[in-house]
């Protein structure tokens, strides 16, 4: 068999370099989409937003750098099955995004990720320097654990607050109550930590009135118990999930 014929007969599959360049290019497009569409807020925190534009550009450059020799070189090598499997594995997250669009962390994740259950009264050490700005879920949690934090942040029995979050039903809460919950993210959704405030609506409540994962905007006043603060609402409004579901 001549060399040329032997070479031609072996080129029945995918060109390995071209496939690798394709995978890099595809991921570059995904990062560009995450960046330009704002979808990156579903997966990343502000500290790592830079990953999206960086990934788009760097992976794009890598795709081009890989593709150019693939076009020029006569020394083509075919994609092996192992490479094909790796290619498939690299595409799995993209498939997951397509299969479950708009996925977000909700009550199930809150129940699993809660470090000590909702306001379980752990001997927590609150940060020494309270944050400024509107009172949030984390402030209320820390204030429930630390008197000094509550004092410095101006949180006390009767303080008015306005919170937007989703409904969860921790087993530790009495019947007729629910918790309003929000995830705080540092770098990505994998490190999201749920903070919840127990809500005690006035009068009898039908359990199905506030199902898990329903987003609510609640205005009300805080009440202080031994285990922390609860929220007595003046008004409860059903709202759509915000574009950015996390707090930071």
């Amino acid at each position, binding site marked *: 068999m001549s060399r040329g014929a032997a070479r031609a007969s072996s080129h029945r599959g995918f060109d390995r370099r071209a496939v690798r360049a394709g995978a890099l290019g595809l991921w570059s497009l995904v990062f560009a989409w995450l960046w330009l569409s704002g979808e990156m807020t579903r997966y990343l925190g502000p500290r790592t937003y830079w990953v999206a534009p960086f990934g788009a550009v*760097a992976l794009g450059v*890598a795709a081009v750098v890989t593709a150019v*020799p693939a076009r020029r070189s006569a020394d083509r090598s075919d994609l092996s099955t192992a490479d094909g499997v790796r290619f498939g594995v*690299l595409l799995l*997250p993209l498939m997951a995004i397509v299969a479950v669009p708009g996925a977000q*962390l909700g009550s199930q994740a809150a129940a699993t990720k809660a470090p000590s259950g909702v306001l379980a009264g752990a001997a927590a050490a*609150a940060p020494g320097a309270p944050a400024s700005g509107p009172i949030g879920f984390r402030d209320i949690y820390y204030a429930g654990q630390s008197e000094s934090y509550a004092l410095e942040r101006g949180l006390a029995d009767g303080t008015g607050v306005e919170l937007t979050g989703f409904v969860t039903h921790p087993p530790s809460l009495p019947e007729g109550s629910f918790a309003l919950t929000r995830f705080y993210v540092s770098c990505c959704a*994998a*490190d999201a930590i749920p903070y919840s405030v127990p809500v005690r609506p006035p009068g009898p409540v039908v359990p199905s009135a506030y199902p898990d994962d329903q987003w609510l905007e609640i205005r009300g006043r805080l009440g202080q118990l031994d285990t922390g603060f609860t929220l007595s609402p003046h008004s409860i409004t059903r709202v759509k999930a915000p574009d950015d579901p996390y707090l930071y």
Partner: protein
Amino acid sequence: MVLRLRVVRSPGWEGGEEGVEGGEEGPGREWPEGVLAMPPHANVSAVATTESPALSRPGAFPAVAVGGSLVAAAVVAVRLAGMGGHPVVQSFVVVFTSIVVEALPFILLGALVAAGIEVFVPQDAFDRVARFPLGLQLPAAALGGFAFPVCECGSVPVARRLIARGMHPASGLAFMLAAPILNPIVLASTVIAYRGLGLSFQMAAGRVLLGLALAVVAGWALGGDSAAELLKERPGEPPPAPYRSAMRAPARSAAFADHLAADFFFMGSFVVAGAALAAALQTVIPQSLVAGLARTPVVGSLALMGIAFVLSLCSEADAFVAVSLTQFPIGAQLAFLVFGPAVDAKLALLYSASFRRRFVGRLLIVTVPVVLAGSLWFEALVR
């Protein structure tokens, strides 16, 4: 073990057309054991592989097409069945995707550095480093992490390449374990995270010292093997380095691109698999189960090591999580910050793909007692 050889024609080789003695030329051709006689400057390189011939067979169009069709069918089925609305599925997808999205650029950065080391750093440089006594190499390699701002996903391909190029395996491992802890971004994030508790300096210093100690001890304990004994061969990996010096600039660029893409492909696929494992564990195991064990320093440290393994967080982000684990003693939080970048669910898969069998087990045997002892010592000092 049966040694199998893959014949790979080197792009850009400027020599003649010598082939393997007694064989017919062709990329990806596998030769039986014993076909080793070839001119020293032959236009081939041999890559040992333990992968099954079926997996490394070229031209795998049908298998890839069938696999792709199955995955596409699964996506359609999930959408049609409405399974995407299930909370467990949603949690899994968000955590899984976020770990991958955060890690892939770092994998690329690691692959970039590894390819640069392979193609552009002359062999003499590694030979000179290898002549230093191990007692000097080890801490120097570990301290090298200060200058390498890449998290654990990026440090594995770099360490693997350094060892393959001739750095002592102990030094390579020390670098691999130290870089994700000592790099400037990680230390800055640790300082910022613990500023609120007034423990910035203590936590950063504790992380540096315990990270260095772990890197040196683990490097010394696990780096006794030769590079060939330690590193797992990778089928399909571009040819090794020695012939690079004979290449022209365009050929070097092509080789660089080859290495970059190969490392990204290989490491990336294992990070995806590890992220899936971590996401599954995060979705299924309630953290409150482990948190209930938090009260004592010893159990608390062990519990947070377990959580660090499950969460598989990037070392550049983990301090912000550690500081929120307020029900755990401060020493246990340090254990979380040192153990996680050394061993976690995604790294376990990455290690098992990069190093030979039992590496993860041996690393755990060294890491757990070192980190536990260090965290208890830190607890006693700080409290």
